[in-house]
Every structure is written in structure tokens, then in C-alpha cells.
């Protein structure tokens, strides 16, 4: 068992310390077994690089993204008001999150409700850590392996972050292969817009199967993702294709942490 020393904002406030950055873990990152591994990878990298960070812990609550996209604007704004009050109470300036849905909501939709922060996605932070030399990775466990990267809608199209995750993956010295539908043409995994929490409408195929098949057609060893929902959808898609032995679905933070032996 591995334990992490992760301070909460309230602990640091009591000690009179202001962290460089707040790590917004998100609901998936806190509760979903698979996504927790990504959370740990991010925490390991932050610790390794000597970044002082803190989490909100039990004070964190859903950003309201799935409620908003499902049309429940009331619930979204209630959640947002509470979160803004908490974040502003700690005078938070900068937030990093490994969830593109939290990222989009905090960055784009909270300012109108009084929450103004510099919000970055963990792919951008990882790139920054590499660029500034704080995180040195070259090759490692994934050297020479075939990797394809799936763009999360809320990171890519929604916020035009296409290069940061790819530049992070380049440090692995892997063989990057692109799906035909990538970057701004990337195909959704099927989870956005609150679909994660309901059965799909009647159709002839599940969206995650369509996407998983596209990825698997490239014969990758790893499908890299940067979103906990994409992680769930594509892992399921790979499993449904009986390929989970040959192909793993991993977050860019996990790949980087493994390559750096963290």
C-alpha cells in the first residue's frame, strides 16, 4: 500500500502556507478506481518535481458540469456558487486538474459567477514541467511502443489544447500513430454531455465501440487518454473487443510517471 502526503488547503491555511497550485481532483479522480490511479500519478509527479500543491479534500464538490450539460442550470449554479465561495475563501489563484470537464467548467463558466482563476489541464502542467527541466523523461518503459492518443472533446475542440498532450507523449520515444479522426476532428468517446450517467439513446452502435475500433485498427500497444470519462469509455470499448490483454488504455500522466520510474 502506498500512502501519499497530500496537504489540504485548510491544513496549509492553518499553517499559513500558500501552495503554488491547487490540484482539483474531481469526482472521477476521487472515487473511480481507475481514475484514482491517474490522480496518484499526477500527485507523484508533482511531489517529484517539488511543486507545493494542495487539494480541497472533503471541501471539493462536483463542478456541476454534468448537471449543466444535462440542462439542470439550477443545480450547476448552486454547485458553482458553493465552489466559488470555497475557492475564493482560500484566495486560490491557480488550479490544475486531470479532468477536461472540470477544466472547461472552472476555466470558462466560473468567471461569470465570480470565480476567476488561472486554470490549466494536467497535460499543460506536465508540458511546462518538462519544458522547464523540472521533470526529465526520455524514453523509458514505453520506448518504441506504438501509442495512439485520443483527444478529449473538452480539452481539444472545446479549448483548443491539442499539442500539450502530444508533446508530453513525445518524451516517451514511442511510435506515435494518429487516428484519422484526431485533433479538431477527433471523435467523441461517447461520455460527454452527461451521457456518462445514462444509457445511450436507441441506435445501431455504441459510440465508444466506434472509437475503440478506430483506435484498435492502428494496432497500438497503448491508447493514451487525458480524461477520466474517455478512460472509462475506451477501456470498455477495448474490453468489448477482447483486446484488453494486448492493448492498455492509460492516461498521459501514468505513462509519464512510469517512464520516469516514479
Amino acid at each position, binding site marked *: 500500500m502506498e500512502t501519499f502526503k497530500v496537504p489540504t488547503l485548510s491544513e496549509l491555511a492553518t499553517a499559513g502556507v500558500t501552495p503554488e497550485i491547487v490540484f482539483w481532483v474531481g*469526482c472521477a479522480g*476521487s472515487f473511480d478506481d481507475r481514475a484514482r490511479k491517474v490522480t496518484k500519478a499526477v500527485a507523484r509527479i508533482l511531489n517529484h518535481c517539488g511543486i507545493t500543491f494542495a487539494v480541497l479534500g472533503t471541501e471539493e464538490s462536483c463542478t456541476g458540469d454534468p448537471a449543466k450539460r444535462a440542462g439542470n*442550470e439550477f443545480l450547476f*449554479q448552486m454547485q458553482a*456558487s458553493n465552489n466559488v465561495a470555497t475557492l475564493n475563501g482560500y484566495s486560490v489563484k491557480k488550479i490544475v486538474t486531470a479532468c477536461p470537464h472540470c477544466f472547461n467548467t472552472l476555466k470558462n463558466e466560473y468567471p461569470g459567477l465570480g470565480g476567476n482563476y488561472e486554470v490549466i489541464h494536467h497535460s499543460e502542467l506536465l508540458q511546462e514541467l518538462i519544458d522547464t527541466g523540472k521533470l526529465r523523461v526520455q524514453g523509458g518503459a514505453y520506448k518504441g511502443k506504438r501509442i495512439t492518443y485520443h483527444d478529449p*472533446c473538452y480539452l481539444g475542440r472545446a479549448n483548443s489544447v491539442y499539442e500539450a498532450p502530444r508533446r508530453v507523449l513525445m518524451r516517451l520515444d514511442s511510435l506515435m500513430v494518429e487516428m484519422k479522426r484526431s485533433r479538431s476532428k477527433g471523435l467523441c468517446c461517447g461520455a460527454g454531455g452527461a451521457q456518462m450517467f445514462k444509457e445511450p439513446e436507441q441506435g445501431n*452502435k455504441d459510440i465508444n465501440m466506434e472509437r475503440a475500433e478506430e483506435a484498435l485498427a492502428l494496432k497500438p500497444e497503448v491508447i493514451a487518454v487525458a480524461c477520466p470519462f474517455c478512460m472509462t469509455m475506451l477501456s470498455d470499448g477495448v474490453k468489448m473487443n477482447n483486446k484488453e490483454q494486448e492493448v492498455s488504455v492509460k492516461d498521459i500522466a501514468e505513462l509519464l510517471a512510469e517512464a520516469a520510474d516514479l
Partner: protein
Amino acid sequence: MIAQIIFALFLGVGIYFFARKIREVNKLIALGQPLDRKDRISERWKTMFRVAMGQSKMTSRPVAAFFHLIIYLGFIIINIEVLEIIADGLFGTHRLFAPLGLVYDYLIASFEVLAFLVLVACVVFLSRRNLYRIRRFNMDELKAWPRQDANIILVIEIFLMSAFLLMNAADQLLQAAGHGHYISAGLFPISSMLTPILSGWTTESLVLAERGLWWFHILGILAFLNYVPYSKHFHILLAFPNTFYAKLDPSGKLDNLLNVTREVKLAFDPSATITPEEASAPNRFGARDVTDLSWKQLMDAYSCTECGRCTSSCPANLTGKKLSPRKIMMDTRDRLEEIGRNRLKNNAESDDGKSLLHDYITPEELWACTSCNACVEECPVLIDPLSIIIDLRRNLVLEESAAPQELNGMFTRIENNGAPWQFSPSDRMNWTQS
């Protein structure tokens, strides 16, 4: 002289009815809710130049982009020729711009080349639509009138371009014969190849043909002008304002409903300060009918040319769900036009008991959306179908409490334990221990 009067009459009537229709459309768009899109003006001009004039979003599908570009350039450049035709018609002159000499020669030559290329492009597009099984041109919402509309436009363009080239062919023969006012002017790289069709015609027949084609060409253009606002072809005009007023924020950003902000503020603190915008926000939550949408969403609907790039990239549609972003836009326009007709008929606002939600767009379509923004990204004229989907969902949820059962469960869990799944908030730090 009589010809000039008749011409002026036709021109006047054509422009009058066009202007009347534009005013009508303008009024219908103005039925939309207010939305400020007058900020960041220089960025807006740049977007319009890049996307509408520069056709920047077309290029992702190179075949269509190439032929579309030809028709677009043809349309713009051949309009210079229309200026001359109008001037000739009003003043009773023939080839008024001929004194431009060499410039005129090259202008006419370029019109001819473009007219020919436009003709080819229209034939290519007609066959793409009717002979090839391209999915986005053969979907349910594109049956009947929309398909006919597309074909009518292409056929009209073919007729107009053919008339223009044949007219020049007749003109050349008359120029060569030195007949009457047919002064020697212009270069005819394409129509010179058509002259054999008219060989052996008498001078009188040639004059008749030239005049007949001239009238056909200009009356055809006036008719086309009046057809455009009733058709999917409206995009040739609306692409410009529509890209100008497009959303400039990241596409992932949804608006925060002001009336909800007002209610939430008051729920937290009954004496909270309410901004004038929040106070004047409408009472309706989300959109039930088109008049609940913003004017920009209504302009989007009129700007849609039904190309279906949105639908062909929609993950829900690709996997057989009912949602089609193109249909969302077509329904919005159809419903708005219906309201327009009702108003004309009854001379006032009247409730016909119908609404965009339910009567045109079903909840099943709305609940299939993943809000992935693929439709928004695809649109060559920056239409935002996603915003309409979200506004309709808002109405379903906030006024009808008609969310799918699983989503109601998700709402309840967020309310009760601050997460869309059933976990206790006190377990949020458990990941540090395991």
C-alpha cells in the same frame, strides 16, 4: 426606349420584392432574445474575412471545397458583368464598359472561363447529390423539398451560365458581321467554341437570340435573387453577418443563464444585489419555442445551407441515433417561418399551440447529444447547433422535469453528496490511502 422602361420596371419590382423579404426575415430574427455580440469588433472582422470570404472552414473536404470555391468566385466576379448588364439595360447601351479596352477584354475572358468552370462545378454537384450515395445528401431530413431546393439552385445556375455563354457566342458573330451597334469588344475564349452551333443563322435570328438570352440572363438573375431568401441558398448572403456575429469564446463555454443566477443569488441571500441584466432576464428557463432562442441562434438557422457536415461528424448520428444537428437547424428555421406565416395571416401574434420542442424536435434527439462540439467545429459558417440543443434540454429539465430517469438520479446525487456517483464526500481523500 420601351425596352429601357420595361427593364427598369423589372429591376425595380425584383429589388422591391427582395428587399421586402429581407425585411420580413429581419423581423423574424429580431423575435429572438437579446444577446450582445457587438464586442471585440476587430476580431469579428477578422473572423468574417477568414471564414466567410476566405472559406477557411471549407478546406477540410477538398473536393467540395474546390468546386465550391469556383462557384463562389464565379458568383462574385460575374457580378461585375451584372453591373454592366444593368447599366446597359437602363441606358439602352450595348457593352457600356467596352471603352476599358484591354481590361474589358480580359474581364470578359475571365467571366467566360469562370462561367464555364461554374457550369462544370454545378454538374459535378448535381451528380454528387443525385447519382452518388453520399450519406449526408440522402438522409431523412433531406428528402422532398430540401433535395429539390438544392437541385433547383444548381439547375438555375447551369441555365444562367449557359445563357451567358450562348449570348456571347451570338454577340461575337454579330460583331464579326459588323452588324449595327455590335461593336468589336471582349475576348471570348469559351463562347468562341460555341459559335458553330449558331452558324448559318441569319443576322436577324442572331440578334433575336442575343437579345433573348440577354433578357433571360438578367430576368433569371432577378428571379434567383428573389428565390435565395426562401431557399437554403440564403447562406450566400448570411454567411457574412453570421460569421461576424459568431461566438468568439472557446466552444466549450456555455452561457450561464442569468435568470437562474438571479434565483440562485436570492436563494442564498434574499437581500443579494441583482444586476440590471439579471433583473431583466426572461422568466422562461431555456427554450421551448424559437422565440426563446437568441437572435443569433435564429440567424444561424437562416444561414444553414444544409450541407450536413455537422451531421456527418456527429458521433450520435454516426452510430444510428436520431439526433442530426442539421435537422436541429432546419427545424428551427421551419418553425420560425411558420410563426412568420401565422403573424402575416393573423396580423398579430397568435398562439398556434405548437412549439419547437416536441412538435419539431423530440427529447430523444436532444438526449442523444454528447455536447462534443463536432458539429460546431465542422460548420463552414460558424453555426452553433449545440447551443440550441442545450437550451431545449434546459427547458425539458427545468420546466417539465422531464430528464431521463438516470439523469435525475445523477442530479440527486450531486445535490446530496456533491458527486454524480453515490459516494460520501468524506471519502474524497481515500485515494491517498490505497
